[in-house]
């Protein structure tokens, strides 16, 4: 019973979102059926498409996890973008200069990338702890700083002179991560992180404190939680997850180097995934796969129909809004109906 309602809500909301989107597709003089057909064909239709969807999803799973855990704990970390970029840049630069055997180098680079993301989030944690600066705005501003700083580093000190756009040199070939049946190993790392995070949130006392902090900060404080340390810890952990996403994209993506615009929209996608998932960890996994499917299918959609791939960004935001709208609207509606029924009883 407890599962039926959220699942039916989700299906209803996604169906409604696709319905709204088809109006816009019709306005674009295309057939919604053809567009969705292409989306399915290239997103899920064959093993090739499906594995590509999984490969498109791994950064989203990690940034989504990052946002989910942060929001669940009442820590508004919106800095996934900046943390992601630092993870990617540090990994890309060390991947050029560090000489290690691949069995040691790949995990080391991934962890170092994650740590640089954590360090960037740690800056926000420091501001919060030392100066009581709201992490909501400071992480946002740190995004812009990270964007320009990494771009500077890729444009001047670590520039590959042979590249057309500002980018670093290709990382050493030993550090290219392999695929298992066309699926990136990075995807399995992301899956593992979902379980690890689940364990942290639901099976450790720090995770418990973080959740209590999200329910009610005052209650957590009165109950004896060290709220300041918990906040710092959550920021570091979520920064690590975003940084790891960036590092894995360098190690297991297609480019194996840091280029301008590599961060794309991964940070905000993560925030949207967390919102759709209502901060649940396994729901985050589901919605990350869903968004990965849309992104991967979008390439095929542009190829097959006249609808440009940018449409998916719009579709994504409609889905987010209808999902939260349906969820919240249904709750208000049931509350209203219940109130009316109670009132009816009283009047009688």
């Amino acid at each position: 019973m407890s599962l039926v309602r959220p699942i039916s809500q989700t299906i209803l909301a996604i169906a409604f979102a696709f319905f709204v989107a088809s109006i816009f597709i019709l306005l674009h003089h295309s057939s919604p059926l053809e567009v969705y057909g292409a989306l399915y064909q290239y997103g899920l239709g064959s093993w090739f498409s499906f594995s590509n969807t999984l490969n498109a999803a791994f950064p989203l799973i990690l940034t989504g996890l990052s946002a989910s855990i942060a929001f669940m704990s009442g820590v508004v970390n919106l800095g996934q973008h900046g943390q992601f970029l630092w993870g990617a840049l540090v990994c890309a630069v060390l991947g050029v200069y560090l000489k290690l055997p691949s069995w040691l180098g790949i995990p080391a680079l991934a962890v170092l990338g994650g740590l640089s993301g954590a360090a960037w989030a740690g800056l926000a944690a420091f501001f919060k702890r030392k100066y009581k600066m709201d992490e909501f705005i400071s992480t946002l501003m740190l995004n812009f700083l990270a964007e320009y700083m990494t771009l500077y580093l890729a444009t001047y000190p670590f520039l590959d002179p042979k590249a057309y756009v500002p980018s670093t040199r290709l990382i050493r070939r030993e550090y290219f991560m392999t695929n298992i049946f066309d699926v990136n190993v990075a995807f399995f790392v992301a899956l593992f992180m979902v379980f690890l995070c689940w364990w942290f949130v639901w099976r450790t006392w720090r995770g418990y404190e973080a959740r209590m902090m999200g329910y009610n900060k005052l209650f957590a404080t009165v109950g004896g939680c060290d709220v300041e340390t918990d906040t710092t810890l959550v920021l570091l952990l979520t920064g690590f997850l975003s940084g790891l996403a960036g590092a894995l994209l360098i190690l297991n993506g297609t480019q194996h180097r840091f280029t301008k615009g590599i961060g794309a929209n991964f940070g905000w996608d993560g925030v949207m995934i967390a919102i759709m998932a209502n901060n649940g960890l396994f729901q985050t996994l589901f919605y990350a796969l869903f968004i990965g499917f849309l992104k991967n299918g979008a390439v095929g959609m542009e190829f097959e129909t006249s609808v440009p791939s940018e449409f998916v960004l719009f579709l994504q935001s409609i889905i987010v809004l209808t999902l939260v709208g349906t969820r919240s609207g249904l709750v208000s509606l049931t509350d209203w109906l219940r109130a009316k029924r109670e009132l009816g009883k009283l009047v009688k």
Partner: protein
Amino acid sequence: MGAIVAQLLHAALSSATPIALAAFGGMFSYHANVFNIAMEGMMLMGAYYAVYGAYRFGHWLYGMLFALLSGLILAGIFSLFAIVLKVDEFITGIGINMLALGWTTYSLRATFQVKGAFISQSIPAIPKIRFPAIEKVPFLGEVLSSHPFLVFVAIAFAFVCHVVLYRTKFGLRLRATGEEPTAVASVGLSIGRLKLWSAVLCGIFSALAGVYLSLGYVTLFSENMSNGRGWISLAIIILVRGRPMSIMLMSLVFGLLENLGMLLQRYAVPPQFTAMLPYAATLFVLYSYARRLKSA
């Protein structure tokens, strides 16, 4: 030296305008205790439709009309979700920002068949105002002359908003909605309707900021061209606790910093570093605000 300072102030006034306009919009929501963070998206949408209307119909007034309509539509969506459906305001705001980013990026591609930016000679810009009387005054003339008229509108709005907020019935009710909604409801006023008005005002002002961005500051539309200005305006509102005069002043400080960067570029400071200045400044202002709170 005087010429450089005059240039700097001229440019500062120019880049302060969109931030100030968006902040005035957000200010109404702030006073109604609506956590509206959709200024970024509303600004972006306004900027896109300003270019669309102006280019399509050949006059900047059409651009403004379209932009204001887009602002109203986004305000309507915000109200539908945040006020009627009672979705979390923060989540609604993020959703609207994403919606604006997605829609403008898609429309740019679908309507103008370009990726990245739409630049054309035939986009009519907002006319620039010249004051023959002031232009003769050496320093002041250089600072104030030949701005798009929205710059002066923004300055005037600082006073108008002050009067509206603190000297009219509407302003009083709006602030009461923020501070004690039950008191407002008890005299028979609709809280939802007042919040709706604050959202509509936010849409209108943010759209105006967008118009200024794409038809005044520059004459083009590029993907995600608001580039965090909405967030900076939000930071300003929170810092000055929504006081219109202080908003204008703080916006000017940010405009000054943004252009100080341009000046530094002449001395071979890489552009990536100078571009960081407004964001670093926001962090710094946040820091000094926190210090002030501590000592108080």
